[in-house]
């Protein structure tokens, strides 16, 4: 049954996740083309200087990439479920409702994890090519919240899309937007160091959010 659930999620989302991951990889490629360009045109040591002491973020291009992937995935996965209230079919499958939802969630989370890992590892590998460990470390600390924001956005989008009443959808959206802002505070490279673990924890907790709106749907709030 797990295989069947995954099969359906895959049919819904495959093109979105593959295409956006490819675009994200291109974005990373673009970042390092720019880096390479700057290294040769500005002189490498001056470029490093800007990064180390003038708060120039070579990776800032990556900022909303995980978020966009997550929103596309969530939309492609959940909007077909609420179209014509097809989620009813899903709840009629011979499985516990929460189990199906968690399987769907697990599929989405795993897809994001794979997609993000690819993007992140390429980013990390190329960063290590061009920069010393200190610069890479600050970059990682800075991009981690953006990837976390992607997961959080995916979880929140599930909650919002599966909610059937518009009034609540809007309220959730406001809360979710304020929540996501926590991940995008601007600051020095590496300034998120003390909060990253806390944000990871909150993001993990938020993962089961959609159970709430799905439950409301099942109990007749539509």
């Amino acid at each position, binding site marked *: 049954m797990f295989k*069947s659930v995954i099969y359906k999620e895959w049919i819904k989302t495959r093109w979105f996740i593959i295409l956006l991951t490819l675009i994200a990889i291109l974005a990373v490629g673009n970042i390092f083309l720019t880096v390479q360009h700057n290294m040769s045109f500005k002189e490498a040591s001056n470029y490093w200087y800007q990064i180390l002491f003038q708060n120039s973020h070579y990776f800032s291009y990556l900022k909303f990439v995980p978020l966009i992937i997550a929103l596309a995935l969530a939309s492609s996965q959940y909007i077909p479920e609420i179209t*014509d209230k097809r989620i*009813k079919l899903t*709840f*009629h499958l011979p*499985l516990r409702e929460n189990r199906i939802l968690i399987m769907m969630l697990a599929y989405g989370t795993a897809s994001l994890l794979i997609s993000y890992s690819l993007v992140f590892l390429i980013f990390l590998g190329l960063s290590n090519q061009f920069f010393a460990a200190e610069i890479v470390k600050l970059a990682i600390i800075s991009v981690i919240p953006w990837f976390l924001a992607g997961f959080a956005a995916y979880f929140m989008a599930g909650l919002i899309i599966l909610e059937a009443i518009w009034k609540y959808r809007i309220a959730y959206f406001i809360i979710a937007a304020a929540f996501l802002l926590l991940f995008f505070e601007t600051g020095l490279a590496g300034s998120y160091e003390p909060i990253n673990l806390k944000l990871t924890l909150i993001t993990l907790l938020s993962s089961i959010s959609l159970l709430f709106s799905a439950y409301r749907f099942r109990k007749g709030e539509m």
Partner: protein
Amino acid sequence: MNTVIECNNLTHYYGKKMVYEDLNFSVGEGRILGLLGKNGAGKTTTINILHGFLQPRSGEALIFGENSQRLSPHTKSRIGFLLEGHIQYAFMDIHQIEKFYSGFYPDWDSKPYWELMSKLKVTARQKISSMSCGQRSQVALGLILAQNPDLLILDDFSMGLDPGYRRLFIDYLRNYSKAGNKTIFATSHIIQDMERLIDDVLIMDYNRVLTQTPVDEFMRTFKQFNFETERSGIDLSKEEFVVNVDTIENNIELYSYDTEDNIRKFLDKKGIAFKNFREVKMGLEDAFIGLTGKY
């Protein structure tokens, strides 16, 4: 005979507005029951409660002895649900959707599904979303037949279908039920269709159940009598044996469970002169209107 669906004292309100209070009915194994009612009489509410998508204010709906709010996976596998409008995962093609569903049901039998699919003029990679309403209904039906459930809950199965497809659908369902002693609970807008399909009829009006009987018994006992009175303005609607009456000047259409003899006697006794007294043959739709009124 085992009871498959049992509703006990079902009560529901939307906010302050009552849908019904203390609704009771049951459906026995192997029976095909049609739920009839006007719009707003609580058909959808009942279907939603049976589907588990609505928690009644009080009372319970039991399916195979389990509360419909908390059906076990095993029980769910014994129920085939057909959603209003033959909703399916329209982003799949017919191969994908068969592959998808087959993973959930151990007794999956794809033969009837492919039999139905072979009659459809669709391509193998055609998404269900691009099919016609009739074709989609055949996909939904094929999936249910392949699932081979013991109980079918069908919400307005005739919606959007051509007469031909409707007939096809009904014939398949009736055949399926009678061959395997399967229970069917169905609603439909088009009552004529029901007549061909159902064994029992459950007619709801606002807030209450008007009747639940086998269709043939209902058709045998519920009658329409037309006659003309000499005087106009005779009001029979308060009489006990009268279920419904339509009076247009001297012409009276009277619906009753009583016999022709008794009614004639009553009219004589009351000194109401009448002529052209005759029983009118009704179809299920006429009987439904007779029972629930035109308004």
